[in-house]
């Protein structure tokens, strides 16, 4: 039992309520109305922060022993590691009440997925999926306004169900990591988690990310024999934006987008880079005449650079034949789940310890292996009135 005023079971309720509610004050409502426990927001904050710091200390000292794990895994058939950045608002620690030195900081997030795995003799889905042929959905994915005055192609307006086999791997078990540390340290955390879950013994291994450089540094340093895959949604966004610049009217833009995206989906990335590479000199743009940053044609140069830099991670037909995922939708989903708790216009976390603590608690709560409940059930007591700050336990 905790050395002070709360039993283990109550601590568990408090930490889960804090992790799953938007704020500590909403957690008080959940605790009162769902559990019948009257606990102040300040107590919830203090307990959650202490547990988060313990989780961070335990992670850093490698204190997650096999005996404390609720699920002991066999090596997966398909192990998928995905990483992405997030954002969090912080304030200076040890400052007077209020928000001081507020700033946006990047968080690092990763999910490690055991997935179903099939393999195919031929590309199981050579045609561009319907979702990427829907102008409204595509505009949303590219974070752009929908094309106005576009006559929908018949196959989109009919919205026929696809007859293609569902080749996509399915999630079996997910564990999550989230932290404020830099990418070098985060890569070590990811590798430790992957080793615990025996991902390096998996029959098939893949690493997915967007174009962020640190994703691929981590992949090359810690997961060199995982197949690196660029999330297909990201080049799609670049291509869509480039198409709006390269063409005059919406119909032409849409046709151009479809042709280039289909080429990427089918592994013909070189055709797209060639088309972009030919268009830019025609606009008088070359190494000797670079574009200013605010020139709209910069979007085309950006798309060309992005596709060229990531060319080796865009062999999508091969990935589909191997039964590997080609989008990091599950990672995006996890980032949204983390953000639900930590990101908001009025949410500020002490930098770094408060932010790190809530990220640890939230990430642990999002894991499928009940690691947070397992830890809280066996949380060692403290022989003193006050727990020493974030001791490794």
């Amino acid at each position, binding site marked *: 039992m905790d050395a*002070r*005023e*709360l039993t283990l079971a109550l601590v568990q309720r408090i930490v889960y309520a804090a992790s799953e509610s938007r704020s500590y004050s909403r957690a008080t409502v959940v605790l009162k109305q769902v559990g*019948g426990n009257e606990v102040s927001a300040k107590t919830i904050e203090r307990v959650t922060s202490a547990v988060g710091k313990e989780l961070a200390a335990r992670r850093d000292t490698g204190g997650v022993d096999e005996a404390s794990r609720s699920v002991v895994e066999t090596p997966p058939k398909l192990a998928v590691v995905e990483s992405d950045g997030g954002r969090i608002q912080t304030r200076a620690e040890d400052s007077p009440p209020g928000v001081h030195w507020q700033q946006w900081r990047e968080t690092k997030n990763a999910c490690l997925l055991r997935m179903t795995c099939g393999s195919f003799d031929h590309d199981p889905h050579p045609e561009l999926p319907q979702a990427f042929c829907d102008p409204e959905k595509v505009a949303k994915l590219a974070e752009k306004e929908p094309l106005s005055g576009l006559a929908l192609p018949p196959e989109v307006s009919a919205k026929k169900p696809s007859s293609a086999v569902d080749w996509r791997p399915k999630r079996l078990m997910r564990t999550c990591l989230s932290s404020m540390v830099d990418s070098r340290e985060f890569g070590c955390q990811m590798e430790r988690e992957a080793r615990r879950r025996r991902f390096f013994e998996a029959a098939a291994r893949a690493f997915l990310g967007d174009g962020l450089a640190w994703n691929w540094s981590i992949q090359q340093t810690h997961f060199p024999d995982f197949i690196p895959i660029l999330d297909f949604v990201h080049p799609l966004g670049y291509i869509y934006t480039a198409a709006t610049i390269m063409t005059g009217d919406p119909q032409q833009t849409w046709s151009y987008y479809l042709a280039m995206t289909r080429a990427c989906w089918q592994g013909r990335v070189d055709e797209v880079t060639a088309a972009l590479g030919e268009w830019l000199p025609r606009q008088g743009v070359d190494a000797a005449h670079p574009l200013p940053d605010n020139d709209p044609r910069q979007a085309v140069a950006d798309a060309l650079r992005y596709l060229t830099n990531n060319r080796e991670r865009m062999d999508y037909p091969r990935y589909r034949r191997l039964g590997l995922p080609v989008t990091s939708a599950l990672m995006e989903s996890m980032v949204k789940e983390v953000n639900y708790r930590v990101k908001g216009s009025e949410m500020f976390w002490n930098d770094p310890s408060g932010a790190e603590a809530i990220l640890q608690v939230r990430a642990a709560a999002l894991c499928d292996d009940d690691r947070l409940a397992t830890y809280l059930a066996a949380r060692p007591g403290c*022989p003193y009135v006050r727990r020493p700050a974030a001791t490794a336990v």
Partner: protein
Amino acid sequence: MDDKTEKLKEKLERLLRETGETAAELQAAERGAGKPVHFSQIEAAAHQVGSQLSCRIQERTVRELAADVPQESPCPHCGTLCRLNIERRTVNSTDGPLDLWEPHGHCTRCRRDFFPSA
């Protein structure tokens, strides 16, 4: 399962039945004859009895554990053997506040209190 455990289970079952009957009678007496009642009131009152019972069990069990603690314990910091006193403190549980009796030491060398049961 040995004989003692079996007898204790039977006793618990009998006492729970009696507790249920007594609590229902108490609810009815407090409500007054012929007064309408909503099920939520029945449920809340029953739950309160359950929580009280839970607290009693926890208090009793911890008291027994405290009784078995030796009179002295080493300080967790410096290892000096210190005398232990059994003291009461209030702890919040999921079923409400509990009064627990537990060993409490004071290290004169570290000038610090400690709780060996933690």
